[in-house]
């Protein structure tokens, strides 16, 4: 059993070499080494087991047991565009299908001059960007600590993209990155890799969108690295609405420069099994971040969020609110660590995780953790798990709302605190509808 798990059939040494031999584009030596290091790390440790503390509540055995197809997506396959473009990011959308950045389907009319949105392999070869890519790719995220990140690094290819926002450039239109599974193969794997460099004083709003209505099995193994320089501002919305038989394992790693501001909201509602590791590091003074999220799961879905907010420098503030709504036999894990390093004085850190269980069979494991080594800080954290409040429900009933409508409304109200953060009406409407619809469907059945 154990050997079967540690040497899964899909991700073999041969498969690793075969994958890259199919890609004719030459890569610089440093990138080749990075991939090899990623592969070596993954080959050494294999997929994580529940015996490891970081994976205690998330069993990836179903993913390991699935045989995936590592061949690349057909470059010319037609794209189901319905879910790709959001009204607010018109002419500002990068499209990815499987392991391919589909420039033909991407639209950049609203993206200002100087902003680069380039295939990561091309960027590594382009003298204009090779240095910045070499410097940051694989250095913001820790691929040694996470086998899935190591795997993504090993298979780093043209499914990746560099987004470079030059000094003082402010993108007025949000930039949307839409990731679609490759529909032309059975059980495909995609390794999305995004490197974002926001130079001094720049501003970017990013929508990272994984959406599929497909019922097919596939695996998204994504890594996003974001570097914010002095006074840069990045708003980052991640939407994980993968198909219901999908596996989604992703890492987001963010390095905050002096006085920068990073505000992110993650919505996790798709996939059979999802895991999101998010790490924000305060690498300089005066920076601020908000790291919020909502997970909404039902049936047999499993979702896991592991977050690390690392206050390495003084005078920074972080605010985190994660909410969960669980129905059916679903399970959720929230593990949030806040580190306040020895000299990170005047840190202001706050972390909250709240969960609403709509069924008796749903289960959540929540663990907020604070590790404070500095002495002049303001920190707070807390977690809560609850059910629909009967007094609230009665109140709504006395105003004429039937119990199902009342429950629905209270659940909607619970989610609203996070959904309200989203500034895009079209997405907000979709989310509100799916929050309400999902519950409606349950009450009708």
């Amino acid at each position: 059993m154990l050997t079967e798990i540690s040497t899964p059939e899909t991700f073999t040494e041969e498969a690793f070499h075969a994958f890259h031999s199919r890609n004719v584009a030459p890569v610089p030596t440093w990138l080749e080494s990075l991939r090899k290091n990623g592969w070596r790390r993954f080959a050494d440790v294999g997929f994580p087991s529940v015996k490891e503390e970081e994976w205690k509540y998330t069993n990836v055995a179903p993913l390991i047991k699935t045989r995936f197809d590592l061949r690349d997506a057909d470059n010319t396959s037609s794209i189901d565009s319905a879910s790709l473009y959001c009204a607010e990011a018109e002419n500002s959308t990068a499209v990815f299908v499987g392991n391919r950045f589909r420039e033909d389907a991407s639209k950049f009319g609203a993206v200002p001059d100087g902003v680069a949105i380039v295939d990561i392999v091309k960027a590594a070869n382009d003298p204009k960007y090779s240095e910045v890519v070499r410097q940051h790719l694989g250095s913001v995220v820790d691929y040694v600590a996470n086998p899935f990140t190591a795997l993504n690094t090993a298979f780093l290819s043209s499914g990746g993209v560099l987004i470079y926002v030059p000094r003082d450039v402010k993108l007025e239109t949000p930039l949307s990155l839409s990731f679609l599974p490759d529909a032309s193969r059975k059980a495909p794997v995609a390794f999305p890799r995004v490197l974002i460099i926001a130079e001094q004083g720049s501003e970017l709003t990013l929508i990272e969108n994984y959406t599929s209505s497909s019922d097919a099995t596939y695996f998204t193994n994504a890594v996003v690295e974001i570097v914010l320089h002095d006074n840069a501002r990045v708003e980052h919305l991640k939407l994980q609405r993968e198909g219901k038989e999908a596996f989604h394992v992703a890492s987001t790693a963010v390095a905050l420069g002096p006085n920068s501001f990073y505000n992110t909201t993650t919505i996790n509602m798709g996939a059979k099994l999802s895991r999101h590791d998010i790490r924000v590091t305060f690498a300089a003074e005066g920076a601020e971040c908000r790291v919020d999220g909502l997970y909404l799961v039902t049936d047999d879905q499993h979702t896991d969020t592991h977050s690390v907010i690392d206050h390495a420098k003084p005078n920074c503030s972080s605010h985190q609110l994660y909410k969960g709504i669980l129905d059916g036999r679903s399970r959720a894990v929230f593990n949030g660590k806040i580190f306040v390093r020895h000299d990170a004085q005047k840190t202001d850190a706050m972390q909250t995780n709240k969960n609403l269980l709509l069924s008796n069979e749903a289960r959540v494991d929540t663990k907020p953790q604070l590790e404070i080594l500095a002495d002049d800080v303001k920190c707070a954290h807390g977690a809560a798990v609850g059910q629909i409040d009967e007094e609230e429900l009665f109140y709504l009933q006395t105003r004429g709302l039937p119990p199902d409508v009342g429950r629905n409304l209270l659940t909607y109200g619970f989610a609203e605190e996070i959904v309200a953060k989203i500034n895009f009406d079209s997405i907000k409407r979709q989310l509100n509808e799916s929050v309400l619809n999902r519950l409606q469907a349950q009450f009708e059945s």
Partner: protein
Amino acid sequence: MLEIRDLYASVDGNEILKGINLHVKKGEIHAIMGPNGSGKSTLAKVLAGHPAYEVTRGEVIYEGKNLLEMSPDERAREGVFMAFQYPIEVPGVSNAQFLRLAYNEKRRHLGEEELDPLEFKDLLKQRAKVVEMDASLMNRSVNEGFSGGEKKRNEILQMAVLEPRLSILDETDSGLDIDALRIVANGVNQLHGPNTAMLVVTHYQRLLNYIVPDFVHVLSQGRIVREGGKELALELEQKGYDWLKASNGGPNGLGVTAN
């Protein structure tokens, strides 16, 4: 409109109401008074259908129908309204959103067309005048962060929107300063007419200076022990509830109840 006959109710196995009889006609205002623990709030909650209260005996007929067989939301759609002593906060749901949902739920029940957000906004603006409510409170979450007075006004606003036939005000005066009390009472009076009825549950007489009852019923230990006109409330105010105990020789004291 409302006929309560020999009503017994308990919560967690404790019998709180021990044979209440009450008859309320259209156009009437009835005050239910009594000391703490006498069962007056229980009576209000039983009429609204709170699931924690179990009716063990008796019946309640509302507009010819068995009220106790209806769910709380059915009662509401049939025109029964209770203003809560402690209104509940509903985070994440705006006041306007909530009121429109409730209003349209009732319209649907009556076979009338629902109002869209714009039409409803006009209606809400009008009704908000009844309780001199600030428009900014409409877009805030229901009761969240509202002061005690704002919460009570919001209850009356809900009443103004839902236009109930029978309103039960549960200690609506508690926690109100004199100005807020006047506004709330004034709102209630505007909503009362020949086709509506009210049950005003209160510990103190002061609310009844503003909402003048036709009848006053005094509860003690789950029974109505005194009944009279509005002057009974004044007498209670002067003499206190201890006076009841002292003079309560027979089961009905000086009252006219025929238990």
